[in-house]
């Protein structure tokens, strides 16, 4: 019980400034990563304990598909564009001042080629 209490309090006190685990580079990402993926997607869609996108997809697919976007082989250019411009669940859409149409073309090609 003491351990649980300490863990809860550590979270409480250290809400700002707690331990962080950097995102790990996956094998897939190690080859020529797309700059837009790096800038905008990697904070949610790589492996690591804080990765909201990866956590959400893990829950959604429960092992039937990879939770990491860069390991998927079923993404299409069109579907990537829909997710980026419309969002999904708690993922908000991304505006053209954040990811331009040209950058989205490159990002969609990158993910669709996995």
């Amino acid at each position, binding site marked *: 019980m003491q351990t649980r209490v300490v863990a809860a309090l550590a979270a409480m006190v250290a809400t700002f400034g707690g331990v962080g685990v950097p995102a790990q580079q996956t094998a897939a990402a190690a080859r020529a990563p797309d700059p837009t993926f790096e800038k905008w997607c990697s904070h949610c869609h790589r492996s690591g304990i804080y990765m909201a996108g990866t956590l959400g997809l893990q829950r959604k697919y429960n092992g039937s598909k990879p939770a990491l976007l860069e390991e998927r082989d079923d993404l299409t250019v069109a579907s990537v564009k829909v997710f980026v*411009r419309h969002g999904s669940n708690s993922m908000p859409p991304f505006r053209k001042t954040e990811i331009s149409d040209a950058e989205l073309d490159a990002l969609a090609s990158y993910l669709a080629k996995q």
Partner: protein
Amino acid sequence: MILPPGVHREAFSAALQAFANVVGDQWVFSRDEDIALYNDAYTPFFGEPDKQHVASAAVAPTEVEQVQQIVRIANKYRIPLYTISTGRNLGYGGSSPNYSGSVVLDLKRMNRIIEVNTDEGYMIVEPGVSFIDVQRYFDEHQIDYVPSSPQPGWGSPIGNGLDHGVGNAYGDNFSAVAGLEVVLANGEVLRTGRGALPDSRLWACYHYGFGPYIDGMFSQSNFGVVTKGCFWLKPRWEVSQSFTISSYSDNDMQPMIDALKELRNHEVINGFGIGSPIRQSMATNDGRRPYGVPEVNTLLRRRDGGSSAEWEALAQKTQIPVVEGGGGARGPAPIVKAHLDYAVDFLQRRKVPGTVVMGKPLTTIKPPMIDFGELALSGTSHGHYYFSPIFRQTRDDIFAINDTMRNVMLDAGDFEMIEETGWWASRGFAGGGAGRDKHMLLLMEFRVYDDLDKNRRRRQLFLDLVKACGEKGWGEYRAPVAFHDQVMDQFSFNHHILRRFCETIYDALDPNGILSPGKNGVWPRHLRKA
């Protein structure tokens, strides 16, 4: 596409063309699919499009001179603008305007880190620079400062600071602001503080100019468009470490708070937390981890919230403390050790009841990320928004606000929300890293669901909480755009003179009412309610 209210289609088209002449055709957005990107992705009005706050268009400059031209064009055609920095204020309205039909002035493309001064420890940035951008810049240049990011870190120092946001290094991020550049509604550029001296080398080195200190007038404000911000930086700390003190008696809460507060006031610890783990043991709200004690809900659903004796008995039975406090220090390792040794000795000398447990020293600092894992795994597909009042760091106030909120939820018959919310104390926010905070802040999460009736009931619950808490002096620190008016209504001292004062300034600076009408409850004269 909708039009700004009262603006004819021809005038609107002429204004958009004039905007395009300034920024280029591709940076004026008027197609429905592009405008939709400026809707609040976490709107409390999901599935009720007629109630949502929507833009008529967006314009995205890169230069201060372009912002000046845009506000002059807006004045000419009477176009209301709504300014965003990165537009990621999710949970508080995102990029959606207070006044539907406004043209979003999207500053995301103003994304230059103008200066990082490591000798003095400050940075000057534009509004489109995110915390993640700052961290990347620091990493790339091996700069040993931290950007004081909230989580998630896709927002901007300027947007977050101006909305009184909270970050890991400063706590109150607006307290780090030491000078702003602002485009006023008439198109003039103002620099505050030392920036008012021509070609000043001291803009970010001293907070004040000469005469009234006006930086605060541009926070939670529609008095101007902030185009640069100077921020003091905190150094990357070598170590952070925290301790806890826990007890099985409700009466121990106040002596614990007193001792922790004294340690904070003497800057031995950089902030403190206080809570009631048994009361919080079923809450799932805002990232808390449930211990899973079902009897908790029985007590919380009672009007009296359960007696101390009942809570203490449950605490003994489950071995989950009824009171738990904690504090922490950060900095060079030997200094952190000395501070915490002193703190533990102080608690013993003061005979503060409870068991002290020292946490491990942590040598890493969580970088700005998109830490929405909790939301991704929660029972919503559509985001959330926050009720976030400020209250005092006393046992009486902690219990009083919990009683008030619980009774509002009971009146609404919302047992589910009582269960999700549980019972509030400080979390880590007291102190927040700044060290001198004298308040507590809670962040009560309202999730948005597919069930539109439930969303409607929750919005009403939100407003009931705003009112019930406001009447007792617990106003919010920040609010979703949709509820700005009702929150401002609570700040009613002397016949709402705060709002009337702001309106007087707004009218003087912006007689046509073009800048973010309605932001934080301040409307132009022609849109005010009688």
